[in-house]
């Protein structure tokens, strides 16, 4: 069954997207990414260590020919920085994709949606394929879409919190109104959370901490892979209606 995900004209094989932060080492990162089945990985943009050139490079472990590299603007707290990191990322990478974050507050890491909207507008004008990390706010999701976002990425819960999809109803409203793909970014804590996001009808889920901070990240990566596939199939299959009372599933006919 063909069930392709196409965002900003780019075709993605997997509906699970994974981050590459917080792993013990690059080897573990590579094994977890492999086990997740994801074909897109997020990365951050940081200074090259020019004093110690022996340090390994992430891209020695995550082959850009095999995986789509989605740079983020993590750590940016204003529009100017987010634009600066985006432009650098485009030059360091091979595509126009940017996972745009304009963070509003260190404690919650909630997005500064006013800055996010401005940055989305500007980057879309510059030809970027913008994936803004936003709140679970349907109005802001629509504003971002209108500003040229290729997809919207509402949070399920705060980054790294593992609290799951805290407001499935808002995600549902975002999904109903959106004309661009909707990806849950942040908040997934365990496999069932990923399934819930997909059952709501989300187009994909982005996960980092839930895999990297699991006791066995490789096993959790595989669990997430299956969870996302299960949730997607379940969404497409269409669940049964909920009823208050029992309904027998064995026939009366033929009873003694």
């Amino acid at each position, binding site marked *: 069954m063909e069930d392709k995900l196409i965002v900003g004209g780019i075709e993605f094989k997997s509906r699970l997207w*994974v*981050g*590459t*932060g*917080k*792993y013990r080492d*690059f080897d573990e*990162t590579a094994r977890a990414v492999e086990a997740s089945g994801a074909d897109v990985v*997020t*990365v*951050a*943009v*940081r*200074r*090259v260590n*020019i*004093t110690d*050139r022996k340090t390994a*490079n*992430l*891209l020695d472990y995550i082959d850009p020919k095999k995986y789509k*590299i989605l*740079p*983020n603007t*993590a*750590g940016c707290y204003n529009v100017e920085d987010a634009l*600066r990191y985006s*432009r*650098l*990322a*485009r*030059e*360091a*990478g091979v595509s126009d994709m940017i996972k745009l*974050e304009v*963070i509003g507050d260190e404690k919650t*890491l909630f997005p500064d949606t006013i800055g996010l909207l401005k940055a989305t507008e500007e980057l879309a004008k510059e030809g970027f394929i913008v994936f803004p*990390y936003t709140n679970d706010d349907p109005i802001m999701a629509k504003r971002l879409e209108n500003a040229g976002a290729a997809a919207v990425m509402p949070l399920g819960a705060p*980054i*790294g919190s593992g609290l799951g999809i805290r407001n499935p109803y808002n995600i549902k409203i975002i999904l109903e109104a959106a004309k661009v793909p909707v990806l849950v*970014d*942040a908040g997934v804590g365990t496999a069932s959370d990923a399934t819930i996001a997909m059952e709501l009808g989300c187009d994909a889920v*982005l996960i*980092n*901490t839930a895999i*990297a901070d699991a006791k066995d990240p490789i096993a959790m990566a595989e669990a997430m892979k299956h969870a996302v596939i299960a949730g997607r199939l379940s969404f497409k299959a269409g669940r049964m209606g909920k009823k208050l009372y029992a309904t027998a599933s064995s026939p009366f006919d033929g009873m003694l």
Partner: protein
Amino acid sequence: MKIRVNGEDYETSQQTLSGLLEEMKVRSGRVAVEVNLKVIKRADTADYPINEGDVIEVVNFVGGGDGR
């Protein structure tokens, strides 16, 4: 000539950006370079001149998901 690279003082006799990257043993294919807040196109690094006092940033991709 004295310049700044990634927030540190740096002394070089290189005249171009590509020469500087080579001197620092940085593989130019996987980095992006900014000179005085201007992002330099990869194709332009070969001839891009370096001047006294330039503030240069050399960045690459590292592991990351969200936030920080």
